[in-house]
């Protein structure tokens, strides 16, 4: 049990996701022994991501932009359980290295599971999927180390040879390994522990044989972490705060947790370079408005990702 652990609304759902993750990992180990006829596969990505507001700040002076090199590898198996349902289990490793704020550099290691079923024959049959993922993230800034959980259900349908749509409901939680002692009496220091529910919708349009354009809108209700210069005002609307040294060159800044509604809109152009490779350009606009109306955190994120699947 870590010191100063947060007990509250976060705990129940986090416990659920932790249990689910253990089940997933256990299933992965069990499945390994019976997966002789499973399809082995590998998904890998690498690319560059630029974010103009890594700190999630609403004051211009607090906004810290940076570019990161990202990479991920997911290797696993896919097994058809029936004519309509398939199970995918993967081990996942991903990493991010920032050009400037090295405290955010992190390596994630974990597992992912997906159960997907189709309701009928053919590519235009509707489908539903349940996916769960658990990664342990090891940050350069040790205070941020923790478990990154995500679970979602999705439904989708290819409407025609060009259009497809999908919707999803997901839950995510981040639980830091350790929490700084001390701080302000009555205020948790678990500023990196966040969770939330996300409702999303996506439409994709096949422009050519190689090109796919997709747009996604999502709405997330949950907590977010922001970083700002020392400011007693944040203590009024935050339920957790901690000294954070990631972004400060000379003065110390504080990371704080606040409840917010986050709206995200993203547009992705994906160009196939062959059967198994694609280059993907994405722009994401993210806006988090705090429940107390204390501010709106806006981020613009641009990424170029090379994807490979075997």
């Amino acid at each position, binding site marked *: 049990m870590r010191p100063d652990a947060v007990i509250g609304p976060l705990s129940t759902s986090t416990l659920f996701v932790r249990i689910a993750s253990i089940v997933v990992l256990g299933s992965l180990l069990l499945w390994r022994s019976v997966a002789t*006829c*499973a*399809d082995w*596969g590998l*998904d890998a*990505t690498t*690319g560059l991501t630029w974010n103009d507001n890594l700190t999630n700040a609403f004051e211009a002076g607090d906004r810290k932009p940076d570019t990161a090199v990202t990479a991920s590898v*997911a290797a696993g198996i*896919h097994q*058809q359980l*029936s*004519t*309509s349902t*398939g199970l*995918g289990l993967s081990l996942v490793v991903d990493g991010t290295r920032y050009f400037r704020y090295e405290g955010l550099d992190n390596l994630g290691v974990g597992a*992912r599971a*997906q159960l*997907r079923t*189709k309701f009928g*024959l*053919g*590519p235009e*049959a509707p489908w539903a999927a349940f*996916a769960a993922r658990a990664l342990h993230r090891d940050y350069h800034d040790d205070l941020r180390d923790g478990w990154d959980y995500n679970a979602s259900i999705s439904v989708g349908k*290819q409407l025609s*040879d*060009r259009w497809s749509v999908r919707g999803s409901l997901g839950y995510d939680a981040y639980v830091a390994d350790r929490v700084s002692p001390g701080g302000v009496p009555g205020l948790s220091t678990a500023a990196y522990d966040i969770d939330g529910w996300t409702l999303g919708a996506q439409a994709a349009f*096949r422009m*050519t*044989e*190689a090109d*796919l354009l*997709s747009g996604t809108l999502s709405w997330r209700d949950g907590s977010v972490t922001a970083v700002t210069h020392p400011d007693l005002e944040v203590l009024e609307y935050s339920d957790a705060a901690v000294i954070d040294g990631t972004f400060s060159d000379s003065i110390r800044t504080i990371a704080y947790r606040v409840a917010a509604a986050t709206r995200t809109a993203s547009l*992705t152009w*994906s160009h*196939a*370079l*062959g*059967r*198994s*490779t*694609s280059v*993907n350009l994405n722009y994401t606009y993210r806006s988090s408005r705090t429940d107390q109306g204390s501010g709106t955190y806006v981020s613009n994120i641009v990424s170029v*990702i090379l*994807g*490979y*699947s075997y």
Partner: protein
Amino acid sequence: MRAILGMPMVFTTLLAAAAAAPAATLVAKVIGKDGKAIQNAVVVVVPDAGIPHRAGPPAIELVDQVDKEFTPYVKPIRVGSLVAFPNKDNVQHHVYSFSPAKSFELPLYKGTPAQPLRFDKPGVVRLGCNIHDWMIGYIYVSETPWFGKTDKAGRAQIDKLPVGRNHVRVWHPWMIGPEEATVRIVDLAEAQPVSLQWQIELKPELGSRRAPMPGDAGYR
């Protein structure tokens, strides 16, 4: 066509006549609107003299599944032929077709299904795999034994054709417009190969894309 199939005696006579008759050759070339060669176009020759009845048991044709793709992508066969669908991948496939010419389903399997399927109606059969949605293939079921498929150069040579007047047409899975619109009437003679060229317009085949999209944990 149905009237002809109902007259086996006539076919037998025709077959005997065809065996003894001189044979002609047709060299077909299919290009697109941009002038580039089109591969996988099927060229079908229908003689005015009639179509012979198949002699002997039908051959077993193959449509493989290799690297999660149908191979060949387009397979022309004669009506009445048997087709086996060997799965040469080490994963299961689930082959199906909704096409009126042959609607079938081969649920999850590895290796080769025990019984090949008979394709007894002329027409186009579009194949799919319910596990790998990007897998698409075509079987063209021809009413005549005289057909060919264009190679990378857009060329197909069909030999041993009956001499005389023939209707020749072209089909491609991405072709815009009906294949009937491509019909040409040609008189074939022995030892005088005839060359014909078609220019057809194609639309791209879209549907499910195999290449990955980051963040999409879909199976491929």
